[in-house]
Protein backbone atom coordinates (compact mmCIF):
# COMPACT_ATOMS: atom_id res chain seq x y z
CA UNK A 1 0.00 0.00 0.00
CA UNK A 2 1.03 3.58 -0.53
CA UNK A 3 -0.71 6.91 -0.22
CA UNK A 4 -0.72 9.92 -2.50
CA UNK A 5 -1.79 12.98 -0.54
CA UNK A 6 -2.59 16.24 -2.31
CA UNK A 7 -1.21 19.28 -0.46
CA UNK A 8 -3.20 22.48 -0.17
CA UNK A 9 -1.18 25.70 -0.17
CA UNK A 10 -1.12 29.22 -1.57
CA UNK A 11 2.21 28.79 -3.43
CA UNK A 12 4.01 30.34 -0.44
CA UNK A 13 2.85 28.36 2.59
CA UNK A 14 1.26 25.01 3.33
CA UNK A 15 -2.32 25.17 4.61
CA UNK A 16 -2.84 23.57 8.00
CA UNK A 17 -5.62 21.16 6.93
CA UNK A 18 -3.01 19.26 4.92
CA UNK A 19 -1.38 18.39 8.25
CA UNK A 20 -4.65 16.98 9.59
CA UNK A 21 -5.03 14.92 6.42
CA UNK A 22 -1.47 13.59 6.82
CA UNK A 23 -2.31 12.36 10.33
CA UNK A 24 -5.38 10.58 8.94
CA UNK A 25 -3.30 9.05 6.12
CA UNK A 26 -0.77 7.72 8.64
CA UNK A 27 -3.53 5.59 10.15
CA UNK A 28 -3.86 3.79 6.79
CA UNK A 29 -0.21 3.32 5.88
CA UNK A 30 3.20 4.84 6.58
CA UNK A 31 4.21 5.16 2.92
CA UNK A 32 2.90 8.71 2.47
CA UNK A 33 3.91 10.73 -0.58
CA UNK A 34 2.71 14.30 -0.91
CA UNK A 35 2.03 16.02 -4.22
CA UNK A 36 2.81 19.74 -4.13
CA UNK A 37 1.51 21.24 -7.38
CA UNK A 38 1.57 24.99 -7.84
CA UNK A 39 3.43 27.89 -9.36
CA UNK A 40 6.78 28.86 -7.85
CA UNK A 41 5.91 26.79 -4.82
CA UNK A 42 9.37 25.41 -4.08
CA UNK A 43 9.20 26.69 -0.51
CA UNK A 44 6.03 24.69 0.07
CA UNK A 45 7.75 21.54 -1.22
CA UNK A 46 10.61 22.19 1.22
CA UNK A 47 8.15 22.80 4.05
CA UNK A 48 6.42 19.47 3.35
CA UNK A 49 9.77 17.64 3.23
CA UNK A 50 10.28 18.55 6.90
CA UNK A 51 7.10 16.75 8.03
CA UNK A 52 8.30 13.55 9.74
CA UNK A 53 5.31 11.45 8.54
CA UNK A 54 6.02 12.26 4.89
CA UNK A 55 8.25 9.77 3.01
CA UNK A 56 8.53 11.63 -0.28
CA UNK A 57 7.51 14.97 -1.80
CA UNK A 58 6.48 15.13 -5.44
CA UNK A 59 6.90 18.69 -6.63
CA UNK A 60 5.33 19.97 -9.84
CA UNK A 61 5.86 23.62 -10.70
CA UNK A 62 3.93 25.24 -13.54
CA UNK A 63 1.80 28.36 -14.12
CA UNK A 64 -0.98 25.85 -14.96
CA UNK A 65 -1.36 25.07 -11.29
CA UNK A 66 -1.08 28.57 -9.85
CA UNK A 67 -4.77 28.74 -8.93
CA UNK A 68 -5.42 25.03 -8.46
CA UNK A 69 -8.16 24.84 -11.10
CA UNK A 70 -9.58 21.31 -10.85
CA UNK A 71 -9.69 20.92 -14.67
CA UNK A 72 -5.89 21.42 -14.67
CA UNK A 73 -4.98 19.58 -11.47
CA UNK A 74 -6.92 16.41 -12.30
CA UNK A 75 -4.81 15.21 -15.26
CA UNK A 76 -1.65 15.65 -13.18
CA UNK A 77 -3.06 13.71 -10.23
CA UNK A 78 -4.27 10.94 -12.56
CA UNK A 79 -0.78 10.71 -14.07
CA UNK A 80 0.91 10.52 -10.67
CA UNK A 81 -1.71 8.23 -9.10
CA UNK A 82 -0.72 5.08 -10.96
CA UNK A 83 1.35 3.42 -8.26
CA UNK A 84 -0.78 4.35 -5.27
CA UNK A 85 -3.61 2.55 -3.47
CA UNK A 86 -5.09 5.59 -1.70
CA UNK A 87 -5.47 9.17 -2.89
CA UNK A 88 -6.24 11.56 -0.06
CA UNK A 89 -7.07 15.22 0.42
CA UNK A 90 -8.78 17.36 3.04
CA UNK A 91 -12.58 17.57 2.78
CA UNK A 92 -12.69 21.34 2.47
CA UNK A 93 -13.58 23.39 -0.60
CA UNK A 94 -10.12 22.58 -2.01
CA UNK A 95 -10.38 18.78 -1.80
CA UNK A 96 -14.10 18.65 -2.56
CA UNK A 97 -13.50 20.49 -5.80
CA UNK A 98 -11.05 18.17 -7.56
CA UNK A 99 -11.24 14.78 -5.81
CA UNK A 100 -14.53 13.63 -7.40
CA UNK A 101 -13.04 14.41 -10.83
CA UNK A 102 -10.05 12.20 -10.02
CA UNK A 103 -12.31 9.52 -8.60
CA UNK A 104 -14.59 9.52 -11.66
CA UNK A 105 -11.69 9.15 -14.10
CA UNK A 106 -10.27 6.27 -12.05
CA UNK A 107 -13.76 4.68 -12.00
CA UNK A 108 -13.57 4.57 -8.22
CA UNK A 109 -16.35 5.46 -5.79
CA UNK A 110 -15.13 8.29 -3.55
CA UNK A 111 -15.43 8.17 0.22
CA UNK A 112 -16.15 11.73 1.37
CA UNK A 113 -15.63 13.42 4.71
CA UNK A 114 -14.05 10.57 6.65
CA UNK A 115 -13.91 11.16 10.42
CA UNK A 116 -12.31 7.87 11.51
CA UNK A 117 -10.10 5.27 9.86
CA UNK A 118 -11.01 1.72 10.91
CA UNK A 119 -8.65 0.01 8.47
CA UNK A 120 -7.19 0.56 5.01
CA UNK A 121 -10.63 -0.10 3.54
CA UNK A 122 -13.15 0.67 6.27
CA UNK A 123 -14.04 4.20 7.31
CA UNK A 124 -16.51 6.13 9.44
CA UNK A 125 -18.28 9.11 7.90
CA UNK A 126 -21.15 11.34 8.99
CA UNK A 127 -24.32 11.37 6.89
CA UNK A 128 -27.43 13.54 7.20
CA UNK A 129 -25.29 16.44 8.46
CA UNK A 130 -23.91 14.36 11.29
CA UNK A 131 -27.29 13.09 12.48
CA UNK A 132 -26.10 9.56 11.71
CA UNK A 133 -22.71 7.91 11.29
CA UNK A 134 -22.10 5.33 8.56
CA UNK A 135 -19.35 2.72 8.63
CA UNK A 136 -18.44 2.04 5.01
CA UNK A 137 -16.15 -0.46 3.32
CA UNK A 138 -14.69 0.36 -0.06
CA UNK A 139 -14.18 -2.44 -2.59
CA UNK A 140 -12.34 -0.29 -5.14
CA UNK A 141 -8.67 -1.09 -5.79
CA UNK A 142 -7.75 2.57 -5.75
CA UNK A 143 -9.55 4.54 -3.09
CA UNK A 144 -10.20 8.26 -3.31
CA UNK A 145 -10.80 9.70 0.13
CA UNK A 146 -11.45 13.13 1.58
CA UNK A 147 -10.77 13.65 5.27
CA UNK A 148 -12.65 15.92 7.63
CA UNK A 149 -9.67 17.89 8.96
CA UNK A 150 -11.10 18.71 12.37
CA UNK A 151 -11.44 15.00 13.23
CA UNK A 152 -7.67 14.43 13.15
CA UNK A 153 -4.75 16.03 14.97
CA UNK A 154 -2.30 18.31 13.19
CA UNK A 155 0.86 16.40 12.15
CA UNK A 156 4.22 17.68 13.38
CA UNK A 157 5.96 20.01 10.92
CA UNK A 158 9.58 19.60 11.84
CA UNK A 159 12.27 16.99 12.19
CA UNK A 160 11.73 15.15 8.92
CA UNK A 161 13.88 15.25 5.80
CA UNK A 162 12.21 13.44 2.93
CA UNK A 163 13.42 13.62 -0.65
CA UNK A 164 11.84 15.99 -3.16
CA UNK A 165 11.20 14.61 -6.64
CA UNK A 166 10.53 17.17 -9.37
CA UNK A 167 8.10 16.15 -12.08
CA UNK A 168 6.87 17.65 -15.35
CA UNK A 169 3.45 19.24 -15.67
CA UNK A 170 0.66 17.33 -17.41
CA UNK A 171 -1.36 18.58 -20.38
CA UNK A 172 -4.23 20.88 -19.50
CA UNK A 173 -7.60 21.13 -21.27
CA UNK A 174 -7.75 24.97 -21.39
CA UNK A 175 -11.44 25.16 -20.53
CA UNK A 176 -11.33 27.23 -17.36
CA UNK A 177 -9.67 30.41 -16.18
CA UNK A 178 -9.09 31.94 -12.78
CA UNK A 179 -10.34 35.53 -12.40
CA UNK A 180 -10.02 36.60 -8.78
CA UNK A 181 -10.14 35.66 -5.13
CA UNK A 182 -11.72 37.86 -2.48
CA UNK A 183 -10.76 37.01 1.03
CA UNK A 184 -13.11 37.97 3.76
CA UNK A 185 -10.93 40.21 5.86
CA UNK A 186 -11.25 39.79 9.57
CA UNK A 187 -9.05 40.53 12.54
CA UNK A 188 -10.49 37.45 14.14
CA UNK A 189 -9.60 33.82 13.50
CA UNK A 190 -11.43 31.95 10.76
CA UNK A 191 -14.65 30.25 11.87
CA UNK A 192 -13.62 26.83 10.56
CA UNK A 193 -10.31 26.68 12.45
CA UNK A 194 -10.79 28.89 15.53
CA UNK A 195 -10.04 27.40 18.95
CA UNK A 196 -12.95 29.32 20.46
CA UNK A 197 -16.24 30.22 18.77
CA UNK A 198 -18.94 32.44 20.23
CA UNK A 199 -22.24 32.48 18.38
CA UNK A 200 -25.38 34.56 18.68
CA UNK A 201 -28.93 33.56 17.80
CA UNK A 202 -32.30 35.19 17.40
CA UNK A 203 -32.12 36.10 21.08
CA UNK A 204 -29.60 38.81 20.17
CA UNK A 205 -32.57 40.81 18.83
CA UNK A 206 -30.54 43.12 16.57
CA UNK A 207 -27.31 43.38 14.64
CA UNK A 208 -26.20 46.18 16.95
CA UNK A 209 -26.38 43.82 19.93
CA UNK A 210 -23.75 41.61 18.31
CA UNK A 211 -21.22 44.11 19.70
CA UNK A 212 -21.68 42.28 23.02
CA UNK A 213 -20.58 39.07 21.29
CA UNK A 214 -17.76 40.82 19.44
CA UNK A 215 -16.29 42.22 22.65
CA UNK A 216 -16.03 38.75 24.15
CA UNK A 217 -14.70 37.34 20.87
CA UNK A 218 -11.91 39.93 20.96
CA UNK A 219 -11.08 39.03 24.54
CA UNK A 220 -10.97 35.27 23.85
CA UNK A 221 -9.47 35.55 20.36
CA UNK A 222 -12.60 33.76 19.18
CA UNK A 223 -14.39 33.56 15.84
CA UNK A 224 -17.94 34.90 15.74
CA UNK A 225 -20.70 32.56 14.62
CA UNK A 226 -24.46 32.76 14.32
CA UNK A 227 -27.52 30.58 14.03
CA UNK A 228 -29.53 30.50 10.82
CA UNK A 229 -32.31 32.39 12.61
CA UNK A 230 -29.94 35.28 13.33
CA UNK A 231 -28.69 35.27 9.73
CA UNK A 232 -32.22 35.12 8.32
CA UNK A 233 -33.23 38.00 10.58
CA UNK A 234 -30.39 40.01 9.03
CA UNK A 235 -28.45 40.48 12.29
CA UNK A 236 -25.21 39.20 10.75
CA UNK A 237 -23.80 38.05 7.38
CA UNK A 238 -24.35 34.49 6.22
CA UNK A 239 -20.62 33.75 6.18
CA UNK A 240 -20.96 33.52 9.98
CA UNK A 241 -23.63 30.83 9.92
CA UNK A 242 -22.92 27.66 11.86
CA UNK A 243 -25.07 24.63 11.07
CA UNK A 244 -26.18 22.12 8.51
CA UNK A 245 -26.43 24.73 5.76
CA UNK A 246 -23.55 26.83 7.09
CA UNK A 247 -20.17 25.87 8.52
CA UNK A 248 -19.42 22.84 10.67
CA UNK A 249 -17.15 23.87 13.54
CA UNK A 250 -15.29 21.79 16.12
CA UNK A 251 -13.59 24.25 18.49
CA UNK A 252 -12.28 23.55 21.99
CA UNK A 253 -14.89 25.96 23.32
CA UNK A 254 -18.23 26.85 21.74
CA UNK A 255 -20.38 29.49 23.39
CA UNK A 256 -24.01 29.63 22.18
CA UNK A 257 -25.76 32.83 23.18
CA UNK A 258 -29.49 33.30 22.69
CA UNK A 259 -29.60 30.16 20.53
CA UNK A 260 -32.40 27.70 21.21
CA UNK A 261 -30.65 24.75 19.54
CA UNK A 262 -32.54 23.78 16.38
CA UNK A 263 -31.41 20.48 14.80
CA UNK A 264 -29.95 22.42 11.91
CA UNK A 265 -27.70 24.45 14.25
CA UNK A 266 -26.68 21.50 16.44
CA UNK A 267 -25.47 19.65 13.34
CA UNK A 268 -22.83 22.33 12.89
CA UNK A 269 -21.40 22.52 16.41
CA UNK A 270 -22.25 19.51 18.55
CA UNK A 271 -18.81 17.94 18.12
CA UNK A 272 -17.20 20.90 19.91
CA UNK A 273 -15.14 19.84 22.93
CA UNK A 274 -16.82 22.12 25.48
CA UNK A 275 -20.20 23.73 24.85
CA UNK A 276 -21.55 26.64 26.87
CA UNK A 277 -25.16 27.80 26.49
CA UNK A 278 -26.49 31.12 27.69
CA UNK A 279 -30.24 31.40 27.30
CA UNK A 280 -33.10 32.77 29.37
CA UNK A 281 -35.39 29.90 28.40
CA UNK A 282 -34.41 27.07 30.73
CA UNK A 283 -36.23 24.56 28.50
CA UNK A 284 -34.25 25.42 25.35
CA UNK A 285 -32.92 22.23 23.65
CA UNK A 286 -29.41 23.69 23.57
CA UNK A 287 -29.11 22.97 27.33
CA UNK A 288 -29.41 19.22 26.71
CA UNK A 289 -26.05 19.18 24.91
CA UNK A 290 -24.27 21.98 26.80
CA UNK A 291 -21.52 21.11 29.27
CA UNK A 292 -22.23 24.34 31.12
CA UNK A 293 -25.61 25.99 30.90
CA UNK A 294 -26.42 29.41 32.26
CA UNK A 295 -30.07 30.29 32.45
CA UNK A 296 -29.92 34.07 32.28
CA UNK A 297 -30.82 37.16 30.29
CA UNK A 298 -27.98 37.50 27.82
CA UNK A 299 -28.06 41.30 28.02
CA UNK A 300 -27.05 41.02 31.68
CA UNK A 301 -24.87 37.93 31.36
CA UNK A 302 -22.65 39.05 28.46
CA UNK A 303 -21.33 42.27 30.10
CA UNK A 304 -20.72 40.31 33.32
CA UNK A 305 -18.95 37.61 31.31
CA UNK A 306 -16.64 40.23 29.83
CA UNK A 307 -15.95 41.67 33.30
CA UNK A 308 -15.06 38.25 34.67
CA UNK A 309 -12.80 37.53 31.72
CA UNK A 310 -11.06 40.86 32.24
CA UNK A 311 -10.34 39.83 35.82
CA UNK A 312 -8.44 36.79 34.61
CA UNK A 313 -4.91 37.62 33.64
CA UNK A 314 -4.11 34.44 31.78
CA UNK A 315 -6.21 33.84 28.74
CA UNK A 316 -4.79 31.35 26.28
CA UNK A 317 -4.63 32.66 22.77
Amino acid at each position, binding site marked *: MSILLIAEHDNANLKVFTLNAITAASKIDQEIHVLVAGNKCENVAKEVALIPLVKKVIHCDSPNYENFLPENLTPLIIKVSESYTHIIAAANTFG*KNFMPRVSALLDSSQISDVIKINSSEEFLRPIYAGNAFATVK*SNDKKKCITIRPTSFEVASKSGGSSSIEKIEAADIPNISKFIK*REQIKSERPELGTARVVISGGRGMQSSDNFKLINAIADKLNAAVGASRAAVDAGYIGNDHQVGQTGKVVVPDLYIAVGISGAIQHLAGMKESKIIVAINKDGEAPIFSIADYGLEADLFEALPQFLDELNKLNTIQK
Partner: protein
Amino acid sequence: MKILVAVKRVIDYNVQIRVKEDGSDVNTDNVKMSTNPPDDNAIEEAVKLKESGKAKEIVAVTVGEEKAQETVRKAIAVGADRGIHVKSDNYIEPLGIAKILKKIVEKEKPDLVFLGKQAIDDDCNQTGQMLAAMLGWPQGTFASKIEHKDKVIEVTREVDEGLETIQINLPAIITCDLRLNEPRFASLPNIMKAKKKPIEQLYAKDLGVDISNRIQQVKVEEPPKRKGGIKVASVAELVSKLKNEAKVI
Protein backbone atom coordinates in the same frame (compact mmCIF):
# COMPACT_ATOMS: atom_id res chain seq x y z
CA MET B 1 -29.18 27.68 -24.78
CA LYS B 2 -30.50 24.44 -23.35
CA ILE B 3 -30.22 23.60 -19.67
CA LEU B 4 -30.42 20.26 -17.91
CA VAL B 5 -31.19 20.34 -14.17
CA ALA B 6 -30.60 17.25 -12.02
CA VAL B 7 -32.76 16.90 -8.92
CA LYS B 8 -32.83 14.38 -6.08
CA ARG B 9 -35.53 13.28 -3.67
CA VAL B 10 -34.31 13.22 -0.08
CA ILE B 11 -35.69 13.19 3.46
CA ASP B 12 -37.07 16.68 4.13
CA TYR B 13 -34.52 18.89 5.88
CA ASN B 14 -36.88 19.56 8.79
CA VAL B 15 -37.30 15.89 9.69
CA GLN B 16 -35.46 14.44 12.68
CA ILE B 17 -33.33 11.59 11.34
CA ARG B 18 -33.87 8.16 12.94
CA VAL B 19 -31.59 5.20 12.51
CA LYS B 20 -33.25 1.79 11.94
CA GLU B 21 -33.06 -0.56 14.90
CA ASP B 22 -31.04 -3.14 12.97
CA GLY B 23 -28.42 -0.47 12.16
CA SER B 24 -28.72 -1.10 8.42
CA ASP B 25 -29.69 2.41 7.40
CA VAL B 26 -31.65 5.53 8.21
CA ASN B 27 -35.41 5.03 8.45
CA THR B 28 -37.24 6.43 5.41
CA ASP B 29 -40.62 4.72 5.97
CA ASN B 30 -43.49 7.18 6.35
CA VAL B 31 -41.03 10.05 6.45
CA LYS B 32 -41.68 13.33 4.64
CA MET B 33 -39.57 13.56 1.50
CA SER B 34 -38.82 16.60 -0.64
CA THR B 35 -36.40 17.97 -3.21
CA ASN B 36 -32.82 18.29 -1.99
CA PRO B 37 -32.62 22.01 -0.94
CA PRO B 38 -29.75 23.20 -3.20
CA ASP B 39 -31.46 21.43 -6.14
CA ASP B 40 -34.25 23.99 -5.72
CA ASN B 41 -31.60 26.68 -6.26
CA ALA B 42 -30.47 24.81 -9.38
CA ILE B 43 -34.00 24.86 -10.85
CA GLU B 44 -34.48 28.50 -9.89
CA GLU B 45 -31.28 29.58 -11.63
CA ALA B 46 -32.27 27.74 -14.81
CA VAL B 47 -35.72 29.35 -14.76
CA LYS B 48 -34.16 32.79 -14.27
CA LEU B 49 -31.95 32.23 -17.33
CA LYS B 50 -35.02 31.25 -19.32
CA GLU B 51 -36.94 34.31 -18.15
CA SER B 52 -34.05 36.56 -19.19
CA GLY B 53 -34.19 35.04 -22.68
CA LYS B 54 -30.81 33.34 -22.41
CA ALA B 55 -32.14 29.81 -22.15
CA LYS B 56 -34.69 28.28 -24.53
CA GLU B 57 -35.42 24.96 -22.90
CA ILE B 58 -35.08 23.45 -19.43
CA VAL B 59 -35.13 19.69 -18.91
CA ALA B 60 -35.33 18.32 -15.36
CA VAL B 61 -33.94 14.86 -14.64
CA THR B 62 -33.93 12.60 -11.60
CA VAL B 63 -32.79 9.08 -10.83
CA GLY B 64 -34.65 7.00 -8.30
CA GLU B 65 -37.71 5.02 -7.33
CA GLU B 66 -41.24 5.64 -8.66
CA LYS B 67 -41.95 8.50 -6.27
CA ALA B 68 -38.76 10.33 -7.23
CA GLN B 69 -40.66 11.73 -10.21
CA GLU B 70 -42.42 14.07 -7.74
CA THR B 71 -39.21 16.13 -7.73
CA VAL B 72 -39.34 16.35 -11.54
CA ARG B 73 -43.02 17.39 -11.36
CA LYS B 74 -42.07 20.10 -8.92
CA ALA B 75 -39.30 21.32 -11.22
CA ILE B 76 -41.81 21.49 -14.07
CA ALA B 77 -44.27 23.39 -11.87
CA VAL B 78 -41.54 25.95 -11.19
CA GLY B 79 -40.60 26.35 -14.85
CA ALA B 80 -38.90 23.34 -16.44
CA ASP B 81 -40.34 22.43 -19.86
CA ARG B 82 -40.22 18.67 -19.52
CA GLY B 83 -38.80 15.90 -17.40
CA ILE B 84 -36.87 12.65 -17.47
CA HIS B 85 -37.18 10.02 -14.75
CA VAL B 86 -34.53 7.33 -14.73
CA LYS B 87 -36.03 4.58 -12.64
CA SER B 88 -34.11 2.54 -10.13
CA ASP B 89 -35.36 1.00 -6.91
CA ASN B 90 -31.90 0.64 -5.43
CA TYR B 91 -29.53 3.22 -4.02
CA ILE B 92 -26.95 4.22 -6.61
CA GLU B 93 -23.68 5.86 -5.57
CA PRO B 94 -22.72 9.26 -7.03
CA LEU B 95 -20.29 7.51 -9.42
CA GLY B 96 -23.20 5.53 -10.93
CA ILE B 97 -25.51 8.56 -10.96
CA ALA B 98 -22.85 10.55 -12.83
CA LYS B 99 -22.59 7.77 -15.44
CA ILE B 100 -26.37 7.81 -15.89
CA LEU B 101 -26.41 11.60 -16.18
CA LYS B 102 -23.61 11.42 -18.76
CA LYS B 103 -25.87 9.24 -20.91
CA ILE B 104 -28.68 11.77 -20.56
CA VAL B 105 -26.32 14.63 -21.43
CA GLU B 106 -25.13 12.81 -24.55
CA LYS B 107 -28.74 12.41 -25.65
CA GLU B 108 -30.05 15.85 -24.71
CA LYS B 109 -26.91 17.87 -25.54
CA PRO B 110 -27.46 20.72 -23.07
CA ASP B 111 -25.11 23.72 -22.88
CA LEU B 112 -25.31 23.83 -19.12
CA VAL B 113 -26.07 21.30 -16.41
CA PHE B 114 -27.16 22.58 -13.01
CA LEU B 115 -27.04 20.42 -9.88
CA GLY B 116 -27.21 21.11 -6.16
CA LYS B 117 -23.74 21.28 -4.64
CA GLN B 118 -24.46 18.41 -2.26
CA ALA B 119 -27.34 16.13 -1.28
CA ILE B 120 -28.36 16.44 2.35
CA ASP B 121 -28.80 12.68 2.78
CA ASP B 122 -25.46 11.05 1.90
CA ASP B 123 -23.57 14.39 2.01
CA CYS B 124 -21.17 13.13 -0.68
CA ASN B 125 -20.65 16.32 -2.70
CA GLN B 126 -19.45 14.38 -5.76
CA THR B 127 -21.99 13.98 -8.57
CA GLY B 128 -21.50 17.32 -10.37
CA GLN B 129 -17.72 17.13 -10.35
CA MET B 130 -17.77 13.48 -11.46
CA LEU B 131 -20.12 14.25 -14.33
CA ALA B 132 -17.89 17.16 -15.40
CA ALA B 133 -14.80 14.92 -15.42
CA MET B 134 -16.54 12.15 -17.37
CA LEU B 135 -17.67 14.64 -20.01
CA GLY B 136 -14.34 16.51 -20.02
CA TRP B 137 -16.25 19.69 -19.15
CA PRO B 138 -15.25 22.49 -16.78
CA GLN B 139 -17.08 22.95 -13.50
CA GLY B 140 -18.19 25.82 -11.31
CA THR B 141 -18.81 24.27 -7.92
CA PHE B 142 -20.50 25.86 -4.87
CA ALA B 143 -21.74 28.69 -7.10
CA SER B 144 -23.22 31.73 -5.37
CA LYS B 145 -23.38 33.92 -8.48
CA ILE B 146 -23.26 33.23 -12.19
CA GLU B 147 -23.02 35.51 -15.18
CA HIS B 148 -23.54 34.16 -18.67
CA LYS B 149 -21.41 35.85 -21.34
CA ASP B 150 -21.88 34.29 -24.78
CA LYS B 151 -19.58 31.23 -24.96
CA VAL B 152 -18.38 31.44 -21.39
CA ILE B 153 -19.86 31.70 -17.93
CA GLU B 154 -18.41 33.56 -14.97
CA VAL B 155 -18.96 31.78 -11.69
CA THR B 156 -18.46 33.16 -8.18
CA ARG B 157 -17.74 30.29 -5.83
CA GLU B 158 -18.13 30.02 -2.07
CA VAL B 159 -14.75 28.79 -0.82
CA ASP B 160 -13.34 28.47 2.70
CA GLU B 161 -11.44 31.76 2.63
CA GLY B 162 -14.20 33.81 0.99
CA LEU B 163 -15.14 34.02 -2.68
CA GLU B 164 -13.42 32.89 -5.83
CA THR B 165 -14.39 33.93 -9.36
CA ILE B 166 -13.59 31.76 -12.36
CA GLN B 167 -14.51 31.79 -16.02
CA ILE B 168 -15.45 28.49 -17.65
CA ASN B 169 -16.18 27.56 -21.24
CA LEU B 170 -19.56 26.20 -22.29
CA PRO B 171 -20.72 23.49 -22.13
CA ALA B 172 -20.22 23.37 -18.37
CA ILE B 173 -21.42 21.95 -15.07
CA ILE B 174 -22.57 24.28 -12.29
CA THR B 175 -23.21 23.04 -8.74
CA CYS B 176 -25.37 25.44 -6.79
CA ASP B 177 -24.91 26.84 -3.31
CA LEU B 178 -27.93 27.91 -1.23
CA ARG B 179 -26.75 31.50 -1.63
CA LEU B 180 -27.16 31.49 -5.41
CA ASN B 181 -30.77 32.67 -5.34
CA GLU B 182 -34.09 32.50 -3.49
CA PRO B 183 -36.11 29.58 -4.90
CA ARG B 184 -39.71 30.49 -5.74
CA PHE B 185 -42.75 28.46 -4.80
CA ALA B 186 -44.83 26.85 -7.51
CA SER B 187 -48.29 28.37 -7.86
CA LEU B 188 -51.30 26.09 -7.62
CA PRO B 189 -52.29 26.54 -11.31
CA ASN B 190 -48.72 25.68 -12.32
CA ILE B 191 -48.73 22.59 -10.10
CA MET B 192 -51.94 21.50 -11.84
CA LYS B 193 -50.48 22.19 -15.28
CA ALA B 194 -47.27 20.32 -14.39
CA LYS B 195 -49.33 17.16 -13.91
CA LYS B 196 -50.07 17.15 -17.63
CA LYS B 197 -46.53 17.79 -18.85
CA PRO B 198 -44.62 14.78 -20.23
CA ILE B 199 -42.10 12.91 -18.12
CA GLU B 200 -40.06 10.43 -20.06
CA GLN B 201 -39.34 7.23 -18.15
CA LEU B 202 -36.21 5.17 -18.59
CA TYR B 203 -34.68 2.35 -16.62
CA ALA B 204 -31.20 2.75 -15.16
CA LYS B 205 -30.35 -0.85 -16.00
CA ASP B 206 -31.14 -0.27 -19.70
CA LEU B 207 -28.63 2.53 -20.16
CA GLY B 208 -25.63 0.24 -20.61
CA VAL B 209 -23.49 1.71 -17.85
CA ASP B 210 -21.91 0.00 -14.83
CA ILE B 211 -23.86 1.30 -11.88
CA SER B 212 -22.80 -1.37 -9.42
CA ASN B 213 -22.05 0.03 -5.97
CA ARG B 214 -18.45 -0.17 -4.83
CA ILE B 215 -19.01 0.85 -1.25
CA GLN B 216 -20.64 -1.44 1.24
CA GLN B 217 -22.55 0.23 4.04
CA VAL B 218 -21.46 -1.90 6.99
CA LYS B 219 -23.62 -0.17 9.57
CA VAL B 220 -25.40 3.05 10.40
CA GLU B 221 -25.58 4.29 13.95
CA GLU B 222 -26.68 7.29 15.97
CA PRO B 223 -23.82 9.67 16.65
CA PRO B 224 -22.47 9.37 20.20
CA LYS B 225 -24.83 11.22 22.50
CA ARG B 226 -23.41 14.15 24.37
CA LYS B 227 -23.78 13.81 28.08
CA GLY B 228 -25.98 16.56 29.40
CA GLY B 229 -23.82 18.88 31.45
CA ILE B 230 -24.63 21.01 34.45
CA LYS B 231 -26.33 24.32 34.95
CA VAL B 232 -24.31 27.02 36.62
CA ALA B 233 -25.86 29.62 38.87
CA SER B 234 -23.86 32.66 37.85
CA VAL B 235 -21.47 34.10 35.29
CA ALA B 236 -18.68 33.98 37.90
CA GLU B 237 -19.24 30.26 38.39
CA LEU B 238 -19.27 29.74 34.61
CA VAL B 239 -15.92 31.49 34.15
CA SER B 240 -14.43 29.62 37.10
CA LYS B 241 -15.55 26.25 35.63
CA LEU B 242 -14.21 27.13 32.19
CA LYS B 243 -10.88 28.09 33.68
CA ASN B 244 -10.35 25.49 36.39
CA GLU B 245 -12.43 22.47 35.35
CA ALA B 246 -12.59 22.52 31.53
CA LYS B 247 -9.35 24.49 31.25
CA VAL B 248 -10.39 26.08 27.97
CA ILE B 249 -9.76 29.74 28.86
